[in-house]
């Protein structure tokens, strides 16, 4: 098979394709995008003038002038955080912010770090007490042995474990025995624990189940199908449930729902996003002219407060916004003296005011591996510059002898990486929420 023959076949295999008119659609999309951008810019300018003369205003009102107001994805959050508004373009990271490449094979040699977690996140399933017999105020970790190919394991599907601040594990039963089969993916996910550690949200095939750790009760939030990645609001009471155009925010105390509108409608792609401490939802969403350009969008009380063109920072996944910075998994194009280069998957931190990359931690491995396999993701901010993240080294086995995943700590200012904790099974889903370190 020569290269010439390959080329001939590729031509023959596509010569029957039609010649559609895509140009007019592209032009329309570009015009809408420009119009929208101009509205945002003028809105920001108006705000600046209003601020200068002491007139209170709300960006949400002015920024929505260009298209129909989306439904609010939840109750209006608290005070607007000191974050950017309008429209930004995230610049390509500079080589100077790139940390040394992290070699997953050398993790065991890293220094240890007390991140408020035990060194092993494997519960002793036999000795764990029932939550009802030994209640806890809140959990610092929730763990469940589940996920894809669950049928290959002899595991209880309606049970998970939580770790209390006393260092002991409790067994928790979910009142959803038939729905947590793991057919579509793990029921317990990194984002399952509520910010205050009092509730755990699990995904079933037809509903989301919220377990209140105070009394062990389960609330069923019917979805009818597998939902996207959920996101807790900072109040630990409202949960965002992405379901394409049917996405909603539910008050888990009374079941009241509010449509999420476009905030979780990402077209063909699944939802990825989270709330920052001030209440903004930071997510990857279709850009404002609906061309699925996958910008990072900060949403405040249902209004598109900030839109960030993120082409040059790769494909942002697993967004973890803090008050100051946003962490994510991605594969950015690095600005070097040789031009733009994307080589490593890694963790990227951008300051939310400018979306300038302040740090990038590349991880050694085949390009795209960590993003594709969900094996590298930020977990929580320990302070404003220290990030807890999880990493499952590339090439490890998927059986009982698997080396599992590590929980590592990255000081984004010094670049230092250290080891905090570890768990063994690949499909042991883990959600962590370490106690703040004084």
């Amino acid at each position: 098979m020569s290269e010439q023959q390959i080329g001939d076949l590729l031509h023959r295999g596509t010569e029957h394709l039609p010649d559609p008119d895509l140009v007019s659609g592209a032009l329309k999309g570009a015009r809408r995008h420009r119009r929208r951008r101009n509205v945002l810019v003028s809105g920001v300018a108006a705000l600046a003038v209003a601020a200068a003369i002491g007139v209170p205003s709300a960006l949400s009102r002015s920024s929505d002038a260009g298209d129909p107001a989306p439904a609010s994805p939840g109750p209006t959050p608290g005070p607007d955080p000191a974050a950017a508004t309008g429209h930004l373009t995230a610049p390509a990271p500079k080589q100077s912010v790139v940390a040394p490449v992290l070699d997953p094979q050398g993790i065991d040699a890293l220094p240890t770090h007390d991140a408020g977690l035990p060194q092993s996140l494997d519960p002793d399933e036999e000795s764990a007490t029932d939550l009802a017999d030994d209640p806890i105020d809140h959990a610092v970790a929730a763990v469940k042995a589940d996920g894809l190919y669950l049928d290959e394991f002899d595991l209880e599907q309606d049970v998970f474990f939580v770790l209390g601040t006393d260092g002991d594990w409790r067994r928790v039963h979910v009142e959803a025995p038939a729905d947590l089969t793991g057919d579509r993916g793990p029921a317990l996910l990194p984002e399952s624990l509520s910010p205050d550690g009092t509730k755990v949200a699990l995904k079933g095939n037809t509903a989301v189940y919220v377990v209140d750790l105070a009394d062990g009760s389960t609330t069923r939030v019917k979805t009818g199908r597998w939902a996207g990645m959920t996101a807790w609001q900072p109040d630990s009471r409202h949960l965002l449930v992405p379901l394409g155009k049917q996405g909603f925010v539910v008050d888990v105390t009374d079941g009241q729902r509010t449509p999420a509108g476009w905030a979780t409608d990402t077209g063909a792609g699944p939802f990825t996003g989270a709330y920052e401490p001030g209440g903004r939802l930071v997510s990857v969403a279709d850009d404002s002219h609906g061309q699925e350009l996958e910008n990072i969008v900060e949403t405040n009380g249902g209004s598109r407060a900030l839109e960030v063109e993120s082409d040059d920072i790769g494909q942002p996944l697993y967004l973890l916004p803090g008050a100051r910075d946003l962490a994510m998994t991605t594969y950015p194009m690095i600005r070097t003296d040789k031009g733009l280069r994307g080589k490593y998957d890694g963790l990227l931190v951008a300051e939310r005011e400018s979306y300038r990359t302040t740090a990038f931690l590349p991880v050694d491995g085949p390009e795209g591996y960590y993003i594709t396999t969900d094996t590298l993701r930020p977990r929580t901010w320990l302070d404003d510059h220290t990030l807890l993240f999880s990493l499952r080294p590339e090439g490890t086995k998927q059986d009982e002898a698997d080396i599992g995943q590590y929980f590592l700590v990255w000081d984004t200012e010094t670049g230092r990486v250290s080891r905090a904790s570890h768990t063994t099974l690949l499909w042991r889903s883990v959600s962590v929420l370490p106690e703040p370190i004084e």
Partner: protein
Amino acid sequence: MDDAEFTQWAIGCQRQLVRTAYLMSGDLQRAEDLVQDALTKVALRWHKLRHTNPDAYVRTILVRDNISWWRRHRRESVVDALRDPAVQPAGHPAGHPADTETSLVVRASLARLTEKQRAVVVLRHFEDRSERETAEILGISVGTVKSQNSAALARLREGAPELLDLIGRT
């Protein structure tokens, strides 16, 4: 933006782009979506690109968006129909009037490659781009283009007997 200038350029290349995107994605509907999105991005930056190299830029966008789509769908553990020759790609069911035997075989064969390998093969052998041009479009080194191309052709030779069969009949 100079709409007329952009339109003239885009009309001249859109069919070639759809064919390229189809080979990369294996799905006509997605190919058209990818091309329209890529053209939108070019239109938004036309004032900068018109004096440089919009042909390379639009292909970079196509490749990157296609890989992004694939990654995001893999992330949700959706069955990747493209990787299962027994499963027809969504949006392009078996028996589609646009399908030909050659088309089906080519699509199934390319589905055996990684996204990057497929992009290299399409750019090198369908678009007839040089190794350097391919490297620039994909943002990788010339050496990587060579190795990916070599690995892709080896995989096609070993794992796509239907392709060999087709060549044998030409």
